[in-house]
């Protein structure tokens, strides 16, 4: 049977040097282009027909935009809306990557930890820069949870530092691991269905279909969690402890 990790291997279609960098156009890069083209095309097409009675595409676009707006308002409050373009782009890109990766024969870009890691570092770096820009050196107070007695500080500060540094890693690993694991399970089950033949192979095949349905849900959830946590981290940097009291759900 084929190695279930085999579909994740990348081989260069095009390999050339540009300004001293080695540029390699592989399946993931082509898939990313397709994702960007499709997402941009659909959203632009949905947004240009500004009718009072919306077309199907327009109402879908409005639903999506309103959904992202809801996430931002829930987690960051009203002044978080200036991050709307960034967060909407992030959500839509990850969502389209996850969903298009489920089409057999295509490639899931988010199953490469390089992609998710760059996103996570970008988000976390942005929150740190934003925090220092807004609060100056007082931003380091994020390492001290409110209400900590003084003698606990030597213990709490390393713990808080670790939990801060764990943010980008958990963000990157979560998306990458869920996408990879889901596709490996699909690959193994489908391999079983093929080797099992008609007599017993229908059982893993039925599971493949069920798993595929679950994976569609996971694709939404992962994009949603990534976006919510982006908002939470940016909101933490903006509000600095005031967050919990004012926006408790």
């Amino acid at each position: 049977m084929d190695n279930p990790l085999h579909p994740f291997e990348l081989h260069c279609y095009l390999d050339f040097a540009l300004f001293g960098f080695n540029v390699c156009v592989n399946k993931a890069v082509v898939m990313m282009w397709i994702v960007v083209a499709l997402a941009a095309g659909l959203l632009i097409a949905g947004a240009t027909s500004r009718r009072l009675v919306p077309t199907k595409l327009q109402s879908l676009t409005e639903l999506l935009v309103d959904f992202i707006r809801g996430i931002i308002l829930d987690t960051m409050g009203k002044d978080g809306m200036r991050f709307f373009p960034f967060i909407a782009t992030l959500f839509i890109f990850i969502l389209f990557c996850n969903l298009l990766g489920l089409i057999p024969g295509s490639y899931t870009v988010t199953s490469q930890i390089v992609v998710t890691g760059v996103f996570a570092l970008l988000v976390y770096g942005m929150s740190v820069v934003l925090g220092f820009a807004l609060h100056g050196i007082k931003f380091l107070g994020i390492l001290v949870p409110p209400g900590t007695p003084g003698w606990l500080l030597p213990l709490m500060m390393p713990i808080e530092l670790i939990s801060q540094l764990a943010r980008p890693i958990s963000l990157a690993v979560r998306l990458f691991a869920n996408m990879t694991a889901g596709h490996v399970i699909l690959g193994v089950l489908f391999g079983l269905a093929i080797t099992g033949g008609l007599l017993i192979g229908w059982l893993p095949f039925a599971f493949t279909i069920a798993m595929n349905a679950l994976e569609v849900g996971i694709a939404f959830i992962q994009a949603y969690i990534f976006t919510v946590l982006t908002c939470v981290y940016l909101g933490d940097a903006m509000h600095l402890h005031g967050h919990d009291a004012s926006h408790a759900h």
Partner: protein
Amino acid sequence: MPPSTDPFYAGLGQAIRIGTEMLAALIVGGGLGWLADTYLFPSNPWGTVVGLILGAVAGMRNAYRAAQNWPKSQ
């Protein structure tokens, strides 16, 4: 949108979030301890041990904090 309305998917999202939250803090804590061991102080293996314990504590704390924000209705 399915994930926000369906309670099954909402619960699944929370579960996925908490699991990685604990794992990542453990990785960071152990990694920092190991780095301190190998490059900063000749404290082998105590940096890794202390780092892993602090990482586990931080992971628990992260998971607890994430669970505090759950909506009450579930």
